[in-house]
């Protein structure tokens, strides 16, 4: 019973990570750009949604505002700053996008202040659903799982079935050849970046009622997001999906069950210390193990 609930928790956390990782992996894979400021787009989505939600009282308005703000600001940043970085090495990109993090954090502080914002929960998702008898599960978390699966399906169709998807895959494999064939690769870059920003914004909107909406919230999830795309294979949306679910499951299940399991072998205080230590490392151990087995991640894209 508890196990079923924890598996759902793991899936929900994984889906949340997937929304962030999908955009990041596309940008990293196709443009070769390490974008540390991806977490800032998530924060922008959350702040814009909280602001619009409080102003209008409508969750739909919050959703639209969050996604639109993240996508528009994302594309503006791509055009103004990141475009200059594609040809440069990764260290320059890291420094520049780290600068963007500082910029966005300060901007959010100036606009909204230092205290965390209130993000309203849509009333029709506030309750809980009894999936198994005796285990009420929050409807909002189920909604996140549903939205995440829909996004995964839509992304799959986009990448595998559409002309834009074909160009994205081509750009992923061989950027220069696509350019040589006369495709406006700059436009594709902006669109892909906007799509990634849109998904990060969506994650931010959905995170609002669940997490604390505050300056610096993006950096908290950024590291796990990078773990996800490295496990999944850089550039692969499928890899991001599988990686995110793996990370979500491993993180949740070790936190939930490892201390209890260790208590059957060690004394209580030792088990607590070892358990919480190992469970916070578990995700990184998973990454190390997968990289030993498949150095380019689970679903390496060609290039």
């Amino acid at each position, binding site marked *: 019973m*508890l196990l079923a*609930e*924890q598996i759902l*928790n793991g899936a*929900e*956390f994984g889906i*949340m990570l997937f929304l962030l990782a999908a955009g990041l992996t596309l940008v990293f894979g196709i443009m070769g750009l390490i974008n540390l400021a991806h977490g800032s787009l998530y924060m922008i989505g959350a702040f814009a949604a909280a602001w619009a939600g409080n102003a209008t009282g409508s969750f739909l308005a919050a959703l639209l505002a969050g996604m639109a703000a993240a996508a528009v600001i994302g594309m503006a940043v791509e055009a103004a700053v990141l475009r200059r970085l594609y040809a440069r090495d990764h260290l320059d990109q890291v420094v520049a996008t780290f600068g963007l993090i500082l910029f966005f954090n300060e901007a959010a*502080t100036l606009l909204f*202040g*230092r*205290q*965390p*914002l*209130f993000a*309203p*929960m849509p009333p029709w998702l*506030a309750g*809980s659903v009894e999936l198994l008898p005796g285990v*009420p599960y*929050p409807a*909002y*978390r189920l909604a996140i799982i549903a939205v995440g699966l829909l996004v995964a399906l839509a992304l799959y169709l986009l990448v595998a079935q559409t002309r834009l998807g074909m160009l994205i895959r081509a750009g992923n494999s061989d950027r220069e050849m696509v350019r040589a064939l006369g495709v406006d690769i700059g436009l594709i870059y902006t669109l892909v970046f906007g799509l990634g920003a849109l998904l990060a914004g969506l994650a931010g909107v959905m*995170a609002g*009622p*669940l*997490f*604390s*909406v*505050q*300056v*610096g*919230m993006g950096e*908290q*999830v950024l590291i796990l997001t990078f773990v996800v795309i490295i496990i999944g294979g850089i550039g692969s949306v499928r890899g991001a999906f599988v990686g995110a679910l793996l990370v979500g499951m491993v993180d*949740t*299940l070790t*936190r*939930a069950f490892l*201390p209890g399991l260790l208590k059957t072998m060690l004394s209580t205080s030792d088990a*607590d210390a070892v358990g*919480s230590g190992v469970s*916070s490392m578990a995700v990184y151990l998973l990454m190390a193990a997968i990289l030993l087995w498949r150095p380019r991640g689970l679903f390496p894209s060609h290039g």
Partner: protein
Amino acid sequence: MGTGMKAFGAVALAMGLACHAFAADPVRIGMITTLSGPGGYLGEEVRDGFQLAIDQEAGKLGGVPVAVEVEDDGLKPGAAKDIAQRMLDGEHIKLMTGIIFSNVAGAVVPDILDAGAFYVSPNAAPSSFAGKDCNKNYFVVAWQNDALHEAAGQYAENLGYKKMFILAPNYQAGKDALGGFKRTYKGEIAGEIYTKLDQSDFAPELAQIRDAKPDAVFQFEPGGLGITFLKQYVQAGLMATIPMVVSSPSMDARTLGAVGDAALGVQVASHWNSDFDNPANRQFVAAYEAKFHRTPTYYAAMGYDTARLIGSALQATGGDVGRADAFRAALRKADFPSVRGSFRFGANQHPIEDWFALKVVKGADGKPILQTVGTIYKDRGDAYAAECKL
């Protein structure tokens, strides 16, 4: 800079009008506090409360002109040490205050005391400076860190909870919190979890809480962690069945604004609340709300009390911090009306004060507020005072 200029202007005015013998230079006070990052609002509140006391006296404290130099430590002990060094060696500041976080205080306070300066803490009060390593120039206005969790433990005891589930982040303050809670709570501990400091999803812990079926939960998840935890606690449907007891850092006016109705019913142990009905507090809350358009948190109240305590000692010594013995004796008297009502220093120069039971209820305008519902302790000091030989 703005603060400095304002204070300077006030000083110039004071010199022109009064021409006191000591009015030649304002007493300079160094404030190192946390103004950036997720914990930035805490330092902002302390600074604003402190500045309010100065503004109410038009640039003076206790009738003595003061100039406050505020610096942001960014929650980095190393950066705070550098700032302290500059203030102490470069500018010969003799009176410091402001630190929010105990790990910063642990790094900086010894430097300040070694330089022979005074440190008056508005918040951080680690156990390391409260027992045998107490110092004659070190005063804490707020509390001793353990005391607030001991009060929460006693509150849970008073509420008749037989079986508690307790959790806190896996770092020193988190361990101190659960340790302090267990010192006064005598019932059964149904479960004890240390969470990660950067955790954003508490679903696994919530499932364990549901499974353990405790009478109530005690959590010390400060700042954003607490907001996240509360939101998810309510969504999991736990608030209706398993009540929650927290100590004041987990629930202040700002947290309340971010959590909203989800916080209704949370029971808080605190040494101060905005609804305290004493003259000092009534005028403080009214003045703070008029100036900053928000309900003060206890951080602001402690910033204000710190300034007024310093003011009382400046008044008694005519503003001469250099006469350290006289200044120290005056501080020790705590001769000022605290916004808490009852307040004095114990043997280790930490507070002896009352602790109160608060509850989050719907206010007159429908927004949740913290309401004082009872007393937990009268005249309580801390567990370390006996070890301090001053």
